[in-house]
């Protein structure tokens, strides 16, 4: 078995058209129904904490104050409401997108979990098998997240006090380390694109003066278009 075949050992031997049909017509159809219903229910659940204070204790700050607070949040988060689902969909897949936008922690948890699960299962990203493994991985991450957050909510203060300062301080660097490791994982897969990202991305992030929210879609769709053009012209096409 070649190295490439070994890497993608989890791919099914069914014809591509048949696999696509199963995913689109059966799996996605069922997931869409559940995803829509539970997301709509969640949209109501999200308002229960302030409504609980209003109806049980009669506490309400007034619509003007709520509007002011909402405007401040919307000014920062607003663009991401639309950009994130579109930008991350190709990585998260259908099932992963529903969970991710209902329960959050996308870049710091869902994307890495989906990427590692697909690597270990030996499937290609963007394939029907990738959709399945991404869905499994992101579902599992929600179980871990719930346990961690529940434990955190109960004992976090005690644990934090007991941890040595040096250990506590190391968590300041969790995110850059996470991004570095995952970037390394995909740099192995497509080293040419990793170099392009660094050459284009550093000046873009540092000097273009663009709003932060534009950087994700610019880079994601810019690279996607570049990959399509190069692939069509037979440049940087993997041998297998």
């Amino acid at each position, binding site marked *: 078995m070649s190295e490439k075949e070994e890497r993608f050992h989890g791919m099914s031997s069914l014809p591509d058209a048949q696999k696509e049909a199963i995913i689109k017509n059966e799996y996605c159809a069922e997931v869409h129904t559940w995803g829509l219903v539970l997301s709509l229910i*969640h949209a109501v659940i999200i308002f229960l*904490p302030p409504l609980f204070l209003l109806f049980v204790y009669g506490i309400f700050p007034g619509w003007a104050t709520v509007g002011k607070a909402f405007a401040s949040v919307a000014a920062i988060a607003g663009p991401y409401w639309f950009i994130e689902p579109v930008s991350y969909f190709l990585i998260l897949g259908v099932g992963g997108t529903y969970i991710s936008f209902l329960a959050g922690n996308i870049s710091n948890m869902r994307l890495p979990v989906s990427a590692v699960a697909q690597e270990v299962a030996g499937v290609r990203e963007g394939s029907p098998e990738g959709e399945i*493994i991404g869905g499994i991985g992101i579902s599992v991450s929600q179980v871990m997240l719930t346990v961690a957050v529940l434990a955190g909510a109960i004992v976090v203060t005690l644990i934090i006090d007991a941890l040595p300062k040096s250990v506590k301080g190391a968590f300041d660097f969790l995110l850059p380390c996470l991004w570095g490791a995952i970037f390394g994982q995909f740099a192995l897969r497509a080293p040419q694109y990793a170099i392009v990202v660094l050459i284009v991305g550093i000046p873009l992030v540092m000097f273009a003066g663009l709003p932060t929210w534009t950087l994700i879609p610019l880079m994601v769709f810019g690279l996607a278009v570049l990959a399509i053009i190069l692939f069509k012209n037979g440049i940087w096409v993997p041998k297998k």
Partner: protein
Amino acid sequence: MEPEWLKQATGFGMWFIGFLTAGNALLLSFVIYRKAYRYGRKLGMKEQSMKDSVKASYITALGPCLGIFVGMTVLVIALGGAVAFIRESAGVGSIMFELIAARAGSEAAGVQLTREGMSATGLSTVLWAMATGSVAWVLIGGVFTRWLPKLKDLMGQGNPKQMAVISAAIMLAAFGRLFISDGIVPLIRKGAVAPFTGAIVALVVAIGWLLWADKLRKPAMKEYFLLIAIIVGMAAAQMMR
């Protein structure tokens, strides 16, 4: 003595809402897990591949979960455990967004985001800010995801090989942007060596570990690559602080 607003924020009612919120997210995860597994079998995928992905996901989620565990301290201290549980288990989760919303709410109410400075009205405003600020993600994700596969068809144009190349490029773009923002930019702008060191060490360890796993022909080793890379990277960054 515990202030009145904190009693309301940490009472049974708020914890109950927390379990309801987390429960709905878990229900969706359970449904998708079952369906993915069922249709994975129908696709002819190997049982072992799917089992390996479950184990790898648990291990990979451990690092980010620890980060969330530590990061939510501020929220627990400021607003109590129940609110932190509601928002972190299945609110939006990003601690940065939650703190932005909490700050926006407390500012609008004219209170401070501390135990001493908070009030019942302030807490209510914070909760409204968090809810109104995050509901759009849930609605847009929930309603529009069914049309997003068309985007994938447009990109892949029915060619799985093309889709694989594009997917790898997209992952590099998404994580590259974060890697640059959190690892490289602080070094160039502020001379912050520690985050850069951590990011580079984690990158090198990840590549080394994955190549080593391929060389030894032990794919199971890959389950630990992220956890190992993060721990070594964080230790290196802390030493350079």
